[in-house]
């Protein structure tokens, strides 16, 4: 049975879809007729340049290292921040300041931060690592404070009534109760960061994207393709690995908790 509220929501949703559709000049026919352009690219690719494989792999390695460092640095900073940002652990001022900082960090996509860091530290992977770090801080902190705030309020209160200090509460209650989530969040972020670091090269912040964007610029699709394939395979491998790790270690812990 549909009531008034649901009708209203559905009505608004349909209006929003139609309005956005018209406003953005969506033309499906253009897409269908344009597909042939893509075919031209594929026709130009006659042989894949395997000679570039070594460079592709080396630059992929650099990309993975950037993502790795960014994930580690970011989450190390994110953990204390997430405690400051949890309503059930801190005072209003610290919590509001941290949330504001997070809002600023999360407003811009990592590629924009990469441009800013290229201006600050110059071209190269360091700028990329900084921007990935910042992205990770924003992302992990949010996920972490949400899982900290989800810890049973009763447990925290009851244990506090023993009179232990806040630092001890964090060490013996907060960290253990949110750690299973942290592991899975780290994996997810690393996975995401590898994909994002792959395009950091577009703005000169290091990694494999640098090659891809340059070859495409000069219409050397054959060369670009090998790099894109390496990215594709890497992302698939990381995806499969993280699914396996999640299944084997994390799901088990969370399931057995219930």
């Amino acid at each position, binding site marked *: 049975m549909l009531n008034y509220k649901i009708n209203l929501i559905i009505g608004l949703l349909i209006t929003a879809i139609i309005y956005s559709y018209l406003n953005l000049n969506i033309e499906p026919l253009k897409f269908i007729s344009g597909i042939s352009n893509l075919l031209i690219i594929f026709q130009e690719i006659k042989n894949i340049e395997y000679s570039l494989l070594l460079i592709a792999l080396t630059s992929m390695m650099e990309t993975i290292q950037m993502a790795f460092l960014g994930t580690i640095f970011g989450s190390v900073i994110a953990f204390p921040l997430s405690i400051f940002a949890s309503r059930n652990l801190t005072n209003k001022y610290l919590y509001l300041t941290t949330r504001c900082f997070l809002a600023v960090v999360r407003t811009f996509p990592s590629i924009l931060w990469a441009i800013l860091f290229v201006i600050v530290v110059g071209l190269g992977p360091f700028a990329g690592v900084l921007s990935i770090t910042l992205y990770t801080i924003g992302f992990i902190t949010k996920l972490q404070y949400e899982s900290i705030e989800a810890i049973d309020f*009763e447990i925290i209160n*009851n244990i506090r009534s023993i009179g232990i200090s806040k630092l*001890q509460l964090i*060490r013996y209650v907060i960290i253990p109760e949110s750690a299973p989530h942290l592991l899975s969040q780290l994996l997810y972020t690393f996975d995401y960061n590898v994909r994002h670091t792959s395009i950091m090269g577009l703005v000169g912040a290091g990694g494999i994207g640098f090659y891809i964007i340059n070859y495409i610029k000069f219409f050397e699709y054959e060369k670009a393709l090998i790099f894109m394939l390496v990215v594709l395979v890497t992302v698939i491998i990381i995806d499969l690995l993280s699914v396996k790790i999640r299944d084997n270690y994390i799901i088990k812990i969370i399931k057995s*908790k219930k």
Partner: protein
Amino acid sequence: MLSNLTKNNLAIDMNNVWLSYDNINYVLNGITLSIKKSINYTIIGHSGSGKSTLLKIINGLLTPSKGTIKVFGIIPDHQNRKFKNLMKNIGYIPQSLGLVKNITVLDNVLIGALTRINKIKSFFKIVPDVEIDNAQNAIKMVGLEDKTEKKVFTLSGGEKRRVAIARALVQKPILLLADEIVSELDHVTSKEIMNLIIETQHKLNLTSVMIHHDIKLALDYADMISVLQKGQKILEIGVDGNTITEFDVTKNQLAKL
């Protein structure tokens, strides 16, 4: 003068306490309790009668809307320095047990000792050997020595209760508050746990306030029993002076409740 002397004898002195969670309905309606030191005081009553609420007022998790309460002469207030000191020695076993599921039995029990351990050192899990011994002794007392390194989420319901007891014992309590610690347990296990508590109570000369659902259990172990109904104390009996004769009479009365 005389009334002062009797007051000094009290572990808990609760006077006309009212409590409301929402400022509209009162869950406790004018409760007055005088609990003497070193006795086992048991509260029984139907579900929702306000038993857990009463216990939370005693350890300062809740503040009465009206009325006064003193625990060992101190107003329960988690901001108050004096009460903070006392809290360390109030063993509270909540109805939900309040255990940390993802850490070991030993670590859960050690939480009870943390107030005696340096903050920074305990953050890095540097714990003095004495406290490890204390924790292990408490674990042995509740019969869980072969589960010391097990994560709490892997334990059975009864075992979890024992962990909560061990954590309370490691606090070196002078007051033990236990909320339905043996509910949902089989008869034999219930008796085991209750015997253990009474034994330690005598050994440490501590005061205990317990909540039970089972009247028979209360009659078996308590020095004094009060019955709560809709936030009011409708009956208080005890094996104490004049009331001892009254006790037998009420036994039958209670059994019908």
